[in-house]
């Protein structure tokens, strides 16, 4: 989807601005103007877009010949409950992340209090902690006081997902608040609004597209999640897809069930689009950012307490718990298998994440360079290439499986080669799912380079290649890196696709967590969890660094 609702956090509002017809229509250069004029380049771009969209289209196609008996049985047994649980979880987490993410973003953007800057960064770190990790930590912690039965509730599951997913909304909201002009607030106040009223009537509505963008990401994650819901015994549709898959092995039934998820995703995006109507949400003129209001005394204490509590519950306490468990595991581990397992799984994870990220980056650059989004064909191809991001992971996995199995059957491959269950197959699926993140990030970063800057460079005698390497990449570089880091974080935490498609011998860290937690072996699950969190934290730190650095380059 090329609309802003599925953009990665860094880029939402830029994309909206890019939609605005600019005053300048200068002939462009470099990456942008290298836009495929040659036939092979056009062909490559079209091939990528089509290859990436086929698994999704194949899944949707499966609904054309529904397997009636499976549906009848599902409808009579689990389906109503699955739909109810999915809806409950979805709306609870959406509400929770919107409130929490927006409130925290507003707190660190509009107010000054001790520790604000550090907190502003730390509040992004839950991004490094997958829901299934936070889930089992709190599950174990609350088991004593709440009882084994009560703790496995949909509400706790929603709380855990909210705590791990709010950073999406938080990042979007913070970017939106930062871009807003204080003048609109000033005018609102001169027209009789208090600070709080101005927030409700002006700041928040203007941030709406960004908030919706963050919420859309959260929605996708909730629909996709299989690890966390399984922990809390919540049977969502995604969980149902896995159960049908592993239980009956009925590929078509699983695919048809997946279409339900696509349906929900489309409805979510449509609601946001319709709600926006003709209104715009960006102001012209200079963006000076909002004026920061200094808090003192009780206000400052309250603000700091609120922020730090969220960090403590979502990150600090769980990490401490993981560390103690890990030490326990090391003490009890006589044969040093844990250490050996850790190295093996870590390498698997890093290999998958690195290859998937680099592939997404390369294809993203190719698409950005090759697609002319002002042309209808370019728009269609861009939409096709980014389709996967609006589609939950299990759906992608199943679509890819069907596609690869069909390819394997055609026998075009050399003897003995099978795509199903291959490393390439796994990477293919991850690219289908996450290419949109890379593409949108690169597109909007490159789009930030002002046409007049490129025109100046070209009139100064720089060719396209020089413009690309000397002007566009340095300016857009931070944004491109940020997009790649986001892909890396996503692939590192990814569970359902890896679960369904991993080749023999590729056991990633999330798979280990999944296996250990499904037998309630928290201590064993702690080791890979801590590894995920550690690598994730490094990536989040890299992300934050590039975001800050990128902001400097662009301004």
């Amino acid at each position, binding site marked *: 989807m090329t609309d802003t609702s599925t953009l990665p956090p860094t880029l939402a509002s830029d994309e909206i601005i890019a939609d*605005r017809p600019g005053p300048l229509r200068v002939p462009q250069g470099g990456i942008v103007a290298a836009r495929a004029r040659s036939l092979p380049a056009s062909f490559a771009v079209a091939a990528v877009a089509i290859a990436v969209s086929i698994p999704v289209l194949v899944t949707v196609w499966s609904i054309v010949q529904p397997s009636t008996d499976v549906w009848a049985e599902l409808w009579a047994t689990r389906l109503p409950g699955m739909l109810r649980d999915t809806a409950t979880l979805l709306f609870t987490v959406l509400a929770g992340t919107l409130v929490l993410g927006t409130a925290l973003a507003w707190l660190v953007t509009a107010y000054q209090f001790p520790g604000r800057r550090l907190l502003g960064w730390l509040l992004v770190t839950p991004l490094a902690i997958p829901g299934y990790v936070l889930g089992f930590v709190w599950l174990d912690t609350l088991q004593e006081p709440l009882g084994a039965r009560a703790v496995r509730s949909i509400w706790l599951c929603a709380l855990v997902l909210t705590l791990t997913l709010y950073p999406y909304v938080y990042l979007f909201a913070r970017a939106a608040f930062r871009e807003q*002009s204080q*003048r*609109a607030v*000033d*005018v*609102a*106040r*001169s*027209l*009789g*609004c*208090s600070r709080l*009223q101005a927030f409700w*009537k*002006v700041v928040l*509505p*203007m941030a*709406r597209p960004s908030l919706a963008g963050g919420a859309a990401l959260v929605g996708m994650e909730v629909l996709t999640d299989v690890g966390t819901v399984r922990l809390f015994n919540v049977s969502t549709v995604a969980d149902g897809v896995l159960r049908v898959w592993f239980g009956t092995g009925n590929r078509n039934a699983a695919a048809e069930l997946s279409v339900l998820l696509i349906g929900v995703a489309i409805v979510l995006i449509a609601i946001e689009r319709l709600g926006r109507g*003709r*209104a*715009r*949400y*960006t*102001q*012209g*003129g*200079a963006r000076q950012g909002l*004026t920061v209001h200094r808090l003192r005394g009780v206000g400052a204490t309250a603000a700091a307490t609120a922020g730090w509590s969220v960090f403590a519950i979502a990150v600090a306490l769980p990490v401490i718990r993981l560390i103690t468990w890990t030490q326990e595991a090391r003490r009890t581990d006589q044969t040093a298998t844990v250490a050996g397992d850790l190295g093996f799984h870590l390498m698997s994870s890093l290999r998958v994440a690195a290859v998937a990220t680099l592939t997404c980056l390369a294809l993203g650059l190719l698409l950005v360079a090759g697609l002319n989004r002002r042309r209808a064909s370019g728009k269609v191809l861009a939409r096709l290439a980014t389709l996967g991001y609006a589609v939950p992971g299990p759906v992608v996995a199943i679509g890819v499986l069907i596609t690869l199995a069909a390819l394997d059957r055609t026998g075009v491959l050399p003897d003995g080669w099978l795509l199903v269950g291959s490393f390439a197959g796994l990477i293919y699926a991850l690219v289908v799912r996450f290419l949109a993140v890379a593409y949108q990030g690169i597109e909007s970063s490159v789009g930030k380079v002002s046409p007049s800057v490129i025109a100046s460079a070209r009139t100064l005698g720089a060719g396209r290649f020089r413009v690309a390497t000397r002007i566009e990449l340095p300016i857009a570089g931070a944004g491109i890196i940020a997009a790649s880091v986001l892909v890396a974080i996503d692939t590192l935490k990814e569970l359902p696709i890896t679960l369904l498609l991993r080749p023999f011998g590729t056991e990633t860290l999330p798979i280990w967590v999944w296996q250990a937690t499904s037998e309630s072996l928290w201590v064993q699950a702690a080791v890979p969890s801590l590894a995920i969190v550690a690598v994730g934290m490094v990536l989040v730190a890299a992300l934050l660094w590039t975001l800050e650095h990128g902001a400097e380059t662009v301004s």
Partner: protein
Amino acid sequence: MTDLDRRVDTVLGAMDGEALDHGGPERTVALAVHGARREIGGRAIVDDVSFEVADGELFALVGPSGCGKSSLLRLIAGLDPAAGGRVVLAGRDVTTLAPEKRRIGLVFQDHALFPHRRIDQNIAFGLGRMDRRDRARRVEELLELVRLPGMAKRYPHELSGGEQQRIALARALAPDPAVVLLDEPFASLDPSLRDDVRTDVVAALRDRGAAAVMVTHERDEALAIGDRVAVMSAGRILQIDRPEEVYERPVDRFVAEFLGEAAFLPADDGRVAMVRPHDLAVSDGGPDVIVDRRYLGAVWRYDVRRADGPVVAVDVAAGPGDRSLQVGGQVTVSVAADHPLHHLPA
């Protein structure tokens, strides 16, 4: 003498040094600023500024960029805190009041229309609780005032820059503010548009009888539309007077040069006499040399290096068939003013 003139005179009298009579004329003062001061990091960016604006008066605040004029406006609006002094709006001391309680209208250069609200919703933003039909009537009335009827259901981005600026004024005027503050309101507009929008905006302000303070860095704009003009530099107001007074009788060289081309001739009293280009004439032959000339339409402007050193600008009325003097030509510059020259401190 019109009512407006009388009111302005009342204030002018006060500004000339006489204490303002707090019995009668006070209600005609829309805005009074006494000793206003604003500091950032210990540095005064608005420094002991005092002035008053009468009801219905258009007060132009002009100065180079960074002189503190926008800061002064924000201080009056209550958007930034004052480090000293008082702001009195319609007889009410509002110095410590929140901006939303002050009853002021604000118009910014980038108009700051709310992009997510329709035009009618923008204009009605400050109207408070009101019957729906009254509100619609009010909006329509304001749209007519700014000569944009029928635009109610549009969105800001569907309007041109000039139209957006007029809507911003309508929005500021809607709650009947005690004073309208305009911060470089025409700076973002195309020069070809600017005059028209300016005329409309001034007409709308006059129509409403609203007191207004307009900040600009363009001297021509200030002189053209201000009932009075205040010249500001480095946080201080140097002079407040009618446009023709500040132009012809500036208090110092800075004001003189900021408001237009000026040369200074030594005078007998140890001060200098200011000459504007139209106060001078050139004649063929002599010790002075033309170093540059520009055709300005109505006049030719010559830069002439006088035999005793300084370069002065001289305007000569241009007309069809005018035989203009050439660069490098020898001329004599003489004072041709039909009024005594204004003397100011050297």
